[in-house]
């Protein structure tokens, strides 16, 4: 009995496992297909999807609030196009790209999002997973001129547009009026220079008896260094699509880095690592630990909701003799090359990125500074009361130029493994730009060479 008993039990166990594994499969899906290659399609036929039932899978990241906002946008579209249905691929921001890559690699068309949020576009386009939008744009005469200058560069590959940016990272100088009043400093204007900033910063920094800083003048994330470098006329690489050398060792670039370094070194600006440990620039601004921050428009909604915060914005200060400069990037809506209903996806994409369509809805909701100029200058954006000088963001967007990031596929790796860690040493106060930049440029040049640049 004992032998038979455990024999039987083992058999039962094994059988259970087999049964569980070979249970009824989920809805039959197509066999995994080869990852689609990137070929610019011939002019796509105009298929009128008016009567057909269409389900689009829409992919995006964000918080539950942001998801709710996207769902409202989808509902608005469905109101105009009743034959459309939406499903969502939704993942937390930090892990969205992990999820996305596994979905693409898995090759299951029902799991691949038709329209999705993406950053950065060119490197994914290079790997063939995105649909070339140029033919659709030309066929339907979609207006590309309404976008801020150079913004579309961040979503092009080999000259063709692969994505339509939803917003642009235009920056402004947020300032806390109460802290300015306390220190007796005049509010910033759109004409401020670096010198004006320094003068004000000195008055706005409060140091207590033990030498510890109780209030900083400025909070700015370390990763925004390209703003200072760009304003001074420098750039990180000589060519953004096909680089051959690092150009951070030019006097202009060093001037920009040095300015940022000095702000932190003098104690006017909170060190970026410290700031992120104290809740990021949003938290330190709202709690009055810094008097100014330089950031894109994403903070506006939550600052407006804070009744105790009396703030406004101004254009980012520029050096005397320098140029206005801002980042020319923004997350883009793209279409998967593996999408099963491309024409329908394009219809949705077009509507998303049109004045009166998605762009207006997001702008009205206070979520974005829009990529479309007409929407930015319309009541949807300019009509909101706070901050009063929202014009500052427009100034930033008009000044958007290339140079903050590169467009070749290995840029993320170059920036993440070499450039950012080295520059981190500057923001941590452990080395000066003179000490860091030569070694940094050497490493960058070596990386480019190892990866076959210039091609």
């Amino acid at each position, binding site marked *: 009995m004992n*032998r038979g008993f*455990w*024999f039987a039990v*083992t058999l039962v*166990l*094994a059988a259970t*496992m087999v049964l569980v594994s070979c249970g009824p499969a989920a809805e039959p899906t197509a066999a995994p297909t080869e*990852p689609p290659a990137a070929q610019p399609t011939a002019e796509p036929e105009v298929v009128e999807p008016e009567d057909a039932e269409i389900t689009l899978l829409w992919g995006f990241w964000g918080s539950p609030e942001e998801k709710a906002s996207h769902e409202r946008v989808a509902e608005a579209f469905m109101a105009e196009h009743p034959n459309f249905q939406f499903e969502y691929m939704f993942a937390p921001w930090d892990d969205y*790209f*992990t999820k996305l*890559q*596994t979905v*693409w*690699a898995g090759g299951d068309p029902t799991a691949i999002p038709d329209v999705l949020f993406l950053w950065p576009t060119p*490197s*994914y386009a290079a*790997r*063939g*997973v995105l649909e070339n939008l140029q033919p659709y744009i030309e066929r339907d005469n979609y207006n590309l001129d309404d976008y801020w200058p150079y913004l579309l560069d961040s979503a092009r590959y080999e000259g063709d547009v692969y994505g339509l940016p939803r917003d642009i990272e235009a920056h402004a100088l947020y300032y806390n009026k109460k802290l300015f009043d306390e220190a007796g400093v005049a509010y910033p204007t759109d004409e401020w220079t670096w010198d004006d900033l320094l003068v004000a910063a000195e008055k706005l920094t409060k140091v207590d008896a*033990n030498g*510890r*800083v109780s209030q900083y003048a400025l909070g700015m994330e370390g990763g925004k260094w390209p703003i200072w470098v760009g304003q001074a006329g420098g750039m990180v690489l000589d060519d953004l699509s096909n680089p051959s050398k690092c150009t951070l060792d030019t006097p202009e670039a060093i001037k920009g880095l040095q300015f940022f370094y000095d702000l932190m070194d003098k104690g006017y600006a909170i*060190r970026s*690592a*410290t700031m*992120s*440990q*104290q809740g990021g620039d949003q938290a330190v601004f709202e709690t009055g630990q810094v008097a100014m921050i330089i950031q894109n428009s994403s903070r506006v909604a939550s600052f407006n909701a804070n009744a105790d915060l009396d703030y406004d914005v101004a254009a980012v200060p520029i050096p005397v003799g320098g140029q206005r400069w801002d980042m020319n990037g923004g997350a883009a809506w793209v279409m998967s090359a593996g999408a099963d209903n491309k024409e329908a996806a394009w219809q949705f994409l077009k509507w998303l990125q049109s004045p009166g369509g998605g762009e207006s809805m997001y702008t009205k909701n206070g979520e974005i500074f829009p990529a479309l100029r007409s929407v930015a200058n319309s009541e949807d954006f300019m009509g909101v009361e706070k901050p009063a000088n929202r014009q500052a963001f427009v100034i930033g967007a008009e000044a958007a130029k290339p140079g903050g990031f590169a467009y070749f*596929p*290995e840029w*993320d*790796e170059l920036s*993440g*493994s*070499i450039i950012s*860690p*080295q520059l*981190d*040493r500057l*923001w*941590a*106060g*452990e080395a000066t730009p003179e000490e860091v930049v030569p070694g940094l440029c050497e*490493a960058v040049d070596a990386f480019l060479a*190892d990866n076959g640049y210039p091609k």
Partner: protein
Amino acid sequence: MNDEWHHSSFALFSGDSMSTRSLSEHPLSQAEQRRLRWYRMQRAYEGYFFLAPNISGFLLFTAFPVIASFALSFFRWDLLTPPVYAGTAQFKELLFNDPQFRRVALNTFYFTFGTVPARVALSLLLAMALNQALRGITIYRVVYFMPVVTSLVAAALVFQWIFNGNFGILNSFLWGVGSLLHIPIHPPDWLNSTKWAMPAVMVLNLWKNVGFTMTIYLAGLQAIPQELYEAAEVDGAGGWAKFRHITLPMISPTTFFVIIMSLIWAFQVFEEPYIMTKGGPAFATTTLVHYIYLNAFRWSRMGKAAAIAWLLFAIIFVFTWLQVRYQRRWVHYEADQE
């Protein structure tokens, strides 16, 4: 424990009336011989039956992916386009041409040898302290386990405040001590310093995980029979002697386990540095698994990530093998099968 004797006689017989016979005196009949053969065969193979449920899943979901990842390390693959054969190029690049890899490997070694001894010692101490019939012992055990279940994101934030260069209580404390003793102490800005960020991360990791290994030790301590301690006390042994001659040896299989697992976990640490310092400043707290994650999912170098993983494996394997090899010297198994 005279195990040879146990196994030789009992292995032969299934425990019927023949249990006390010895072979030389009474040779077996045909029927008995057949039963014996069947019994021996059963004993030789029953191990596989016990193993079957576990090993089938293990082979499919663990062993196969591991082997696949090994194969992957010889290819360049970005997950989306077909893999490209690269031979041992990636390994060579990592070992000779990748300063980040060297930095990251050093960080990981620093972390491992900084935390594992402390972790093993602390957990054992805690387990011994909480293994007594103290009032409220269950409450204490739960409390010391709380860090394990506390959200790492929350804990990292609190520790960031503790280590804050300006206002953190650690630095306030050090300043206070310095002014009290009139010694100029200039504590560093911990999380902004490439030198001191890693020790801060180690503290977070120790805080979070010591309750885990403490619980393992508690289970092991429970297995030590009270009689041994009582007998020792009768012989006049004091606390230290009891510890050295009873506790330590009896708990050595658990210690063996704890050391190996702590080593493996320490070499594979990822979340604490990632959440507390994001691997910074300047890669000072980036560990090997973090580097793997970056390569696989941020920079689309899946093959390189697999290569790093196997280099990491080699490192861990060497240390584990050393442990297994030399366990005979200090690990005392009751079952004495080794």
